[in-house]
């Protein structure tokens, strides 16, 4: 296994598909925690999971259309995934407004609807071989279309943060006070939801439906353990995210495992190491403080 594992480095620059995978991974490694941090602050960590399930409706619908020999959007399930993810996002926002104190209800409704519809279309589609890819991710097989779409999504995310970053962060920390800043809360909620849905759909191929939320949330969770400010937390989260993309890609290529699984496994490993180190450091600090506070006469 060792020589095969090492061949990752030589193959990285030898094959076009490897470079594409690495490029896509690096970009996703930045935008996933960037959007993920907002999702975490807003206490909506399950939202990416919900949107992922709903974008699976698009993928299954695309496969269903292919089996009817109807060809739309260059036969790329990605584009259908994108449309359905946005529809799912808007549905969540709609239900969220009806159940204001029970935000999670909106996600249960949308995730159930998404899973049910996806099952219906998959059962009626003839070729469902790629289902495995969409469930667990396959960054090593991304197409040129995917790279163009990723570029467009990255520009969208950058534009969102450059134009409205402050408003979105302010709104995420405190929705009730946002109106005193002249922010139209409803419009910003919808803008963020649409961008989040688009990011989720673009992560579908790389991370897989079941692991998208992990790639968004876990690096942020690890960053929160070490960060002392919003910027530092985000910076640490992006660093962890990039590390997990790189080592995840390595493991996916060397061991022939879906990339979503390997990237997320590295993410969790980093989180565990960070949590363990933090615990040890805290324990030592407490012991040191206790020692300093012991009265002299004892």
């Amino acid at each position, binding site marked *: 296994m060792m020589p095969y594992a090492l061949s990752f480095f030589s193959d990285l620059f030898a094959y076009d598909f490897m470079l594409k995978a690495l490029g896509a991974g690096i970009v996703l490694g930045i935008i996933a925690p960037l959007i993920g941090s907002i999702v975490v602050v807003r206490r909506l960590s399950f939202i990416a999971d919900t949107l992922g399930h709903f974008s699976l409706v698009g993928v299954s619908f695309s496969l269903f259309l292919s089996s009817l020999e109807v060809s739309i959007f260059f036969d790329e399930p990605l584009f259908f995934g994108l449309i359905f993810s946005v529809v799912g996002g808007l549905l969540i926002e709609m239900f969220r407004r009806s159940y204001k104190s029970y935000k999670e209800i909106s996600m249960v409704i949308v995730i159930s609807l998404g899973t049910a519809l996806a099952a219906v279309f998959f059962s009626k589609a003839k070729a469902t071989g790629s289902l495995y890819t969409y469930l667990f991710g396959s960054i090593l097989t991304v197409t040129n279309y995917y790279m163009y779409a990723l570029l467009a999504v990255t520009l969208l995310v950058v534009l969102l943060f450059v134009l409205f970053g402050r408003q979105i962060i302010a709104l995420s*920390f*405190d929705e*009730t*006070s946002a109106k*005193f800043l*002249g922010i139209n809360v409803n419009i910003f909620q919808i803008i963020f939801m649409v961008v989040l849905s688009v990011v989720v759909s673009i992560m579908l191929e790389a991370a897989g439906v079941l692991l998208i939320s992990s790639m968004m949330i876990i690096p942020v969770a690890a960053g*929160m353990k070490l960060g002392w400010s919003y910027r530092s937390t985000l910076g640490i989260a992006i660093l962890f995210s990039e590390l997990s993309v790189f080592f995840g890609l390595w493991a996916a290529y060397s061991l022939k495992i879906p990339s979503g699984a390997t990237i997320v496994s590295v993410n969790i490993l980093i989180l565990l190491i960070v949590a363990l180190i933090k615990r040890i450091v805290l324990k030592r600090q407490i012991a040191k403080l206790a020692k300093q506070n012991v009265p002299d006469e004892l």
Partner: protein
Amino acid sequence: MQIDIHNLSFAYGHKSVIGGLSLTLNPGDYLVVRGKNGSGKTTFIKCLLGYNPVKTGMIFFDHEDINTFTKWMKFGYVSQKFEDFNYDYPITVNEMLSVYSLRRTNQSQRLKILDQLGILGIVNENVNNLSGGQLQRVFIARAMLNQPEVLILDEPTASIDKMNTEYFYQTVNSLHQTGITIILVTHNSDLGRLDLTHVLTMRQDMTYDFMTGDKFHTEEAE
């Protein structure tokens, strides 16, 4: 900003909480709203801030009906126990204030407000590591950032100790001297040290006393 309230009533479902409340405040007034728990103080503030829709009675801000009013940037609001903020995610005081100072303020103005409130030293502290008193002043700083005409403080001394409460009242007095209209909700009965111009007493039976500060102090003395 002139605030006119005419015959305001509000109910949660069938439960009436406010019935027939009327008052007028002129720019620069300092109103203290007092009353026991359940007398409708917070409900009144929520009506004033547009969170509770006003269907019976009317509220006007500078003669503009609250239901069509959009210039909420003229208001600063500090809620009870600051519970609406999503804590735990690391964010420094400076970062927090910078995302909330969308217009008209810059870094030096932010630092000036923090200095005025006596919390310049914690500008780079993580908000999650602050004490109740420090947190309260950070939220007042946030409410002050966009230079509001009206500052509404809903029982902000509920979660802080006596010394910080004293400091808080001094701070509000000095903010009032800058010409801002203050509406302070409190269940604290000792109002002697406040520079108030008006007092609204709310009761559970939906009877209200609205009087000037002078009259209130005279009645208290008697």
